[in-house]
């Protein structure tokens, strides 16, 4: 770190929060029926981040791989919960397959990234492991949700077409190929768009944070480039896993599209 970061005093933070009060006032004045949303969201953000800050401070001080692992499992659980809730897709076994794909997909990419790219010492150094795992998990969660929902809705909407293909001797994978392709593409589109617009439309969040904390822009760029490859990799791996498991739940070994 070249220079220390400017710490924000409570007063400075309150000045920042003035913007929330400003938005709240607009919503109330214009009767947008948004006041409650703003209040709830701002409160949730404040509490969640404060708790996170203290938890991270504690974990950074303890430096225990067990705590890091527990935090990772905690992330998997909540990410899976968010995926199931957000997609609104309901069929038996969905929660199990989301947890499994997030754990395997995000876990393996995080480990690959930690051991292959960053090499922190110790390997579980929370200062590196936790933010990296968080970024990888967040993107995996979005990718999984998009793939899961798209595959399900494509299969549901194209039931007749899929059963026609099955009736002509297609395997379940052949019959669902179009749906698979669309679901995979849907998952991959956000990271691909982010990659192609990066540095032109905005400065990425991680880079902004590093630059603000005094890191050289070149180091920040190198981190950003490598994290983007990890995000691309994890989204692809998670889409692959979730679609594989989802396919197994929607079709059976008799190449039948399940109906109940």
């Amino acid at each position, binding site marked *: 770190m070249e220079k220390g970061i400017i710490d924000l005093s409570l007063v400075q933070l309150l000045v920042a929060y003035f913007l929330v009060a400003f938005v709240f006032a607009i919503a109330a004045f214009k009767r947008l029926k948004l006041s409650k949303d703003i209040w709830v969201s701002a409160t949730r953000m404040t509490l969640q981040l404060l708790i996170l800050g203290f938890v991270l401070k504690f974990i950074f001080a303890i430096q225990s791989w067990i705590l890091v692992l527990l935090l990772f499992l905690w992330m998997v659980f909540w990410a899976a919960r968010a995926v199931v809730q957000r997609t609104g897709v309901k069929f038996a076994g969905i929660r199990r397959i989301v947890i499994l794909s997030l754990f395997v997909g995000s876990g393996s990419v995080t480990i690959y990234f930690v051991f292959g790219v960053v090499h922190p010492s110790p390997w579980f150094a929370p200062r590196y492991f936790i933010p990296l795992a968080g970024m990888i998990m967040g993107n995996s969660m979005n990718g999984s949700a998009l793939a899961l929902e798209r595959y399900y809705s494509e299969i549901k909407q194209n039931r*007749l077409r899929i059963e026609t293909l099955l009736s*002509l*001797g297609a395997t379940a994978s052949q019959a669902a190929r179009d749906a698979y392709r669309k679901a995979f593409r849907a998952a991959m589109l956000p990271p691909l768009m982010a990659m192609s617009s990066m540095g032109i439309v905005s400065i990425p969040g991680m880079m902004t944070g590093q630059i603000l904390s005094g890191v050289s822009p070149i180091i920040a760029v190198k981190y950003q480039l490598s994290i983007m490859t990890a995000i691309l990799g994890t989204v692809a791996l998670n889409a692959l896993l979730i679609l594989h498991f989802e396919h197994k739940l929607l079709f059976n070994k*008799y*190449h039948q599209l399940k109906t109940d």
Partner: protein
Amino acid sequence: MNQKTEQNRKKQQLFQFDNVSLKKGNHTIIQDASFTVAPGDFTVLLGPSGVGKTSLLRLFNALEIPTTGKILYKGKNLLDYSIPQFRRRVVMILQKPVVFGGKIRDNLTLPFALKRQKAPVDATLKEFLGRCHLSHDLLNESAENLSGGEQQRLALVRALLLNPDVLLLDEPTASLDVESEKRVIDLLLNENQESGRTLVCVTHSLPLIQAASRLVFMDQGKIVAVRSGASNDEIRAFMKEALDGKGNH
């Protein structure tokens, strides 16, 4: 049907349903269905709407899997076959035929492309189009531009090109105009009577019911009678009775 004839049928059966039931959740769709289909049979599944005829038809090629009981095909449990291969021998044409984007040729050669097999040559495709009263010149046309009746016949051509042992047809003449209906009926009768192809059909079309060699009467998910033929009056009486009975439940 006397006992001896029934025994002969069992020996040469193509399909044998043994106490087949199909349930969805707590709902029983098919209950204890037992009957046989012999090679060359033209079987029509009869009954009022919603009694499970389509579900019974879907059981023939594993689009539905029995909850209990078993279905034998050529003496072997249907589920022991490679199902995609089996479905090419026992081809089902769904009630609403699906044609795929692209040319009519692509639609006809699709089942071969799925198995990476050499597709029939244009001359063969044209011959089959002709058999189904479709113009030879259509091969390069877009399939989606065809009328409902033409799409139904295209689905038939696509199935027949596989030279299946059995054709399963779900209301093949529903929503067709009179001319298209007549053509489809002629084609199906020809396939059965001249080519000896086994047909299993859900239909309300009287000419098809009259031409059937086996009538399977269904009500409330059960097979209530299997007959080798019936007069028009008997068929009407059954349909009326079944409908009245349904109203009483």
